[in-house]
């Protein structure tokens, strides 16, 4: 079956009324949680995991994907009107978009963000459609050694390369790996690190960890440090529509932002932070009026927003073709697949083509729905920003405890939820990234499995990881990304000192 036929079959799945409904629910929910400060896609999908276990996986996954990229659209609204970036990838939008809003140009800022996200999301979905089958061709040749190699690469980039400090990123990763060890060993069935507590035999559920870190931790942090500070919401003044000049200044940044964002999403270097900053500085260099940057230049919103969205879609390439999550949300989506006994990877393209292609097709539909939801209806979403903080966080905690308790009706999970929430609070306060915890706990057990399988094949010969060409190459890349940046930093630092 060619890619085109597969995609058409996917559309037949995505356009059935029930799946269309799940898609609409997903993007609507995604926009809402993207707008609301304190709630993100990783938290929302984690909360919905226990409740969706009995549903048809295709519909539920279409909804989860909708939540994921819908949150990107909604997040830009908050950044522009509130100047509090929901995540690091929207820092630039928060700066430049908020300046536009202050100058009474909130409408065009929202419009260029929404249309840019649509353009980037659609182009990135086309690229995903084209690229996924090619990556699958390569991935079909992967054995356990190769899988282990790419997992180590993902661990390295998620923890050591991204973020401010490699030491804190790695500490977070190893903490996540430790959580992943708890429970029965998948190969021998032995209990590990259960401390004699029967509840721990099944391991710690990813829902409890994700919700604890994101909902409970965030709530405690905001209450302790941010509650006394006032948020200032910029008013929507004037027209939402862009002028002819706005269009002329936006389309270039949209396309360049997409070109930057997608590759960064696909390589396991996760995180949309780097491409948004790159896009911002490129647009500043190319602009005819660079003096406007920092005071509300529309290019500074259009480019980074497109980069952010394209990168989010790009993240799905390694997730769907290799089963490799590179962001917190992708890790939760992987956990969602696992809940139905599905393992994303090249084999899933052969065993469940309708599910995979239905999911990809639904993203074309979802992007159109999001454009409609976010342009004419933006006034409704802005109302969500006016929810008083006490009610917002009390509501978040209601759903957080519901999600954890709903797993198996055990107070033990609630105690665990609170404990992990306190850990999340400390991590947030001392700038320790949380995404490596989730990637480590979900990917860790899979990595161990592949490692032991590889050694079973080689009969204990460790050189298998370095004699197979693909796995050796991936390990070489891993070494490069680990050693490269510090050396580069030192060299460029020397240059600055010399100048």
């Amino acid at each position: 079956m060619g890619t085109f036929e597969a995609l058409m079959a996917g559309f037949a799945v995505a356009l059935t009324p029930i799946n269309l409904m799940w898609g609409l629910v997903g993007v609507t929910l995604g926009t809402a949680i993207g707008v609301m400060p304190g709630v993100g896609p990783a938290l929302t999908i984690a909360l919905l995991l226990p409740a969706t276990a009995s549903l048809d996986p295709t519909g539920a996954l279409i909804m989860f994907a909708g939540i994921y990229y819908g949150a990107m659209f909604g997040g830009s609204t908050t950044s522009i009107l509130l100047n509090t970036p929901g995540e690091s990838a929207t820092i630039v939008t928060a700066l430049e978009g908020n300046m536009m809003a202050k100058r009474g140009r909130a409408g065009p800022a929202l419009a260029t963000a929404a249309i840019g996200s649509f353009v980037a999301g659609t182009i990135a979905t086309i690229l995903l459609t084209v690229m996924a089958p090619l990556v699958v061709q390569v991935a079909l040749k992967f054995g356990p050694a190769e899988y282990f190699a790419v997992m180590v690469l993902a661990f390295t980039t998620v923890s050591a390369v991204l973020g401010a400090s490699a030491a804190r990123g790695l500490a977070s990763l190893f903490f996540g790996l430790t959580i992943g060890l708890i429970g029965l060993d998948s190969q021998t069935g032995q209990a590990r690190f259960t401390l004699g507590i029967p509840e721990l035999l099944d391991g710690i559920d990813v829902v409890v960890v994700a919700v604890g870190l994101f909902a409970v931790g965030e709530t405690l942090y905001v209450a302790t440090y941010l509650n006394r500070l006032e948020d200032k919401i910029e008013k929507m003044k004037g027209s939402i529509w862009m002028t002819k000049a706005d269009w002329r200044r936006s389309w270039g940044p949209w396309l360049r932002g997409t070109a930057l964002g997608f590759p960064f999403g696909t390589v396991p270097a996760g995180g949309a932070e780097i491409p948004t900053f790159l896009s911002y500085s490129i647009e500043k260099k190319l602009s005819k009026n660079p003096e406007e940057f920092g005071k509300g230049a529309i290019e500074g919103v259009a480019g980074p927003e497109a980069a952010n969205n394209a990168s989010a879609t790009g993240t799905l390439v390694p997730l769907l073709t290799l089963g490799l999550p590179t962001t917190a949300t992708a890790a939760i989506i992987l956990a969602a697949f696992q809940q139905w006994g599905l393992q994303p990877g090249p084999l899933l393209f052969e065993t469940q083509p309708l599910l995979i292609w239905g999911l990809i097709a639904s993203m074309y539909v979802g992007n159109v729905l999001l454009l409609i939801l976010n342009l004419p209806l933006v006034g409704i979403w802005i109302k969500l920003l006016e929810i008083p903080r006490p009610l917002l966080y009390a509501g978040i905690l209601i759903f957080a405890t519901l999600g954890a308790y709903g797993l198996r009706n055990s107070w033990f999970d609630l105690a665990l939820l609170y404990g992990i929430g306190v850990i999340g609070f400390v991590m947030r306060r001392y700038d320790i990234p949380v995404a490596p915890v989730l990637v480590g706990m979900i990917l860790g057990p899979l990595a161990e499995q592949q490692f032991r399988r590889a050694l079973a094949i080689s009969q204990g010969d460790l050189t298998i990881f370095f004699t197979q060409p693909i796995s050796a190459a991936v390990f070489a890349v891993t070494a490069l990304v680990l050693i490269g940046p510090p050396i580069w930093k030192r060299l460029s630092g020397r240059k600055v000192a010399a100048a």
Partner: protein
Amino acid sequence: MSTTGARSIHPAEVAISLVLLCIGSFVIYETQGIAETQGYSQVGPRLFPYIIGTGLTLCGAVLGWHAIAGGWRDVPLDQPGHDAPDWIAPAIISIGIVLHMVLIGWAGFIIASTLMFVLIARGFGSKRAVRDFAVGLALVVAAYFLFTRALGLRLPPGPFGV
């Protein structure tokens, strides 16, 4: 970006580093209690715990060294609110969460969650308890029926048996 006062020691950072060091060492120690069954794979269930425990211990050691030698590297300064923490708020919220955990089994989801809602809103400084109660109850009842009836989750009904 980083604080460079060579002699400044950051007590909280030292504490976190020590906790990581302890967890890492504990993982290594506990691993010795796992029976080694090799089977076909040559590596049993001990190898990964050893690697992970060692990694965590090393991270704790490096962070601890940073903490006593001028503080952790590249910590963003001037974070809003860090100079004036409010410890009453998280205390009230924690009471709310713990009470919810104790109550939910026998008082049921609706009562436990509504109480938690009111307490958390109070923790965030709300003075309008009646409004909080009304909003909380409405939200909790809606969530209860959505999740139990539409999505098939089991939640304790409590004394009213809805």
